[in-house]
């Protein structure tokens, strides 16, 4: 994965406006964008250009689509206007909410998983979640999602991945912490037939680092060899 330094980030405004960044680049750029007024101005202007590209493609949708969309709208709730990002990044959450999130995440493990091992991990994650300094980092991607729950005082944590199909034969998933653009291998894990996987973590992300998951050859790699499947915002 090619991580740009800060000087290069300005160059990414065009690619960002065209959705031409991969997930890690996009998150890094979005984090840069919050404090860079030059890029904010660039993006505002580029949006006009992009709108124009989009409007040029206009064509009448299949007529039956409208009734289907309106029917869906009739039974779909809108989001509440509580800021969506307030819970997303590396923030100590109210402990009960966090514990509930862990229970929900682990609950998706499926019946086939070894019950005993799961119970142990559950206990571990639950105790992490109720630690006074518990933190949670969410990783998102095009398919699948994961949460890393950890406690800075105990120096340990757990990654819980869901909706992630098992890696192809000969391949595995690998977790990385990316600090100042340098990826550090944390460990490998696989997911089960219920698309659920977990990994114990004893190396924690520092402030401003990213957490990401790639697919690698069995045994893992020293440096990522594929684009990230899942990535977090800067912690």
């Amino acid at each position: 994965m090619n991580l740009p330094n800060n000087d290069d980030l300005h160059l990414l405004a065009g690619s960002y406006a065209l959705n031409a960044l991969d997930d890690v680049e996009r998150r890094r750029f979005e984090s840069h964008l919050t404090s860079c007024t030059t890029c904010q101005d660039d993006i505002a202007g580029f949006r006009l250009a992009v709108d124009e590209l989009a409007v040029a493609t206009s064509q009448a949708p299949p007529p039956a689509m409208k009734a289907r969309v309106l029917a869906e709208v009739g039974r779909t709730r809108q989001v509440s206007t509580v800021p969506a990002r307030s819970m997303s990044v590396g923030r100590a959450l109210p402990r009960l909410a966090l514990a509930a999130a862990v229970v929900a995440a682990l609950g998706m493990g499926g019946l086939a998983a070894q019950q005993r091992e799961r119970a142990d991990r559950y206990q571990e994650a639950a105790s992490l979640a109720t630690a006074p300094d518990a933190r949670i980092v969410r990783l998102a991607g095009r398919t699948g999602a994961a949460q890393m729950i950890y406690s800075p005082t105990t120096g340990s944590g757990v990654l819980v991945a869901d909706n992630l199909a098992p890696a192809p034969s000969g391949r595995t998933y690998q977790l990385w912490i990316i600090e100042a653009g340098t990826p550090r291998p944390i460990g490998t894990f696989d997911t089960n037939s219920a698309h659920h996987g977990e990994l114990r973590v004893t190396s924690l992300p520092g402030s401003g680092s990213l957490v990401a998951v790639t697919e690698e050859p069995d045994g893992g790699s020293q440096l990522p060899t594929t684009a990230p499947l899942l990535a977090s915002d800067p912690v």
Partner: protein
Amino acid sequence: MYLGDGARLDTMRMPRRLRSVQINDVNPEALLVRVGQGDRQAFEALYDTIAPVVYGVARRVVRDPQMAEDVAQEVLLEVWRQAPRFDPAKGRAASWIVTIAHRRAVDRVRAEQTRHNREDRVGRDASAEPAQSDVGNHLEEQVVRDGIAAGLSALTDTQREAVRLAFYEGRTHSEVAQLLGIPLGTAKTRIRDGLIRLRDAVEPMEVNLS
């Protein structure tokens, strides 16, 4: 043109084609704000205005008609779900919707690519191959026509190709670099310079008025 009339000035500054997006004298921002308050009638009016753009983007990027329809439906539903978060102070309704539509279409096309690559893994990087020839010629021609309509003619050939691959084919800039056989830095620059020219072409008033 008299510069004292704010409303008129806004209309003048809006790119020509987007003005046609405003129908029934209802401005899309006001409509989207009403949708955000749960107004289903407003959504229906908004649907008539934006569904062709949403479907057009989906069709162009994902290509397969059935998949494009799925994507367009998801996007329109997402517009309904997310509408309470739309803030007219931060940008135009058209941009907000186009951003959701293009991102969703690109996500779908990349997920399909990943699935494809996994299914027939042949030990080489499929993304290094040029775009497959199953793209109908008429579609290519359509893209060229759209491109001209959208002001892409203001771009150099190399800028146009980079912007076309990124926007209409949903390629990442790394893929653009690979497909064109150029360094990543050059791809980034072409995309960025292309958008600057395009912006200046669709927004000439900005320069004069600011």
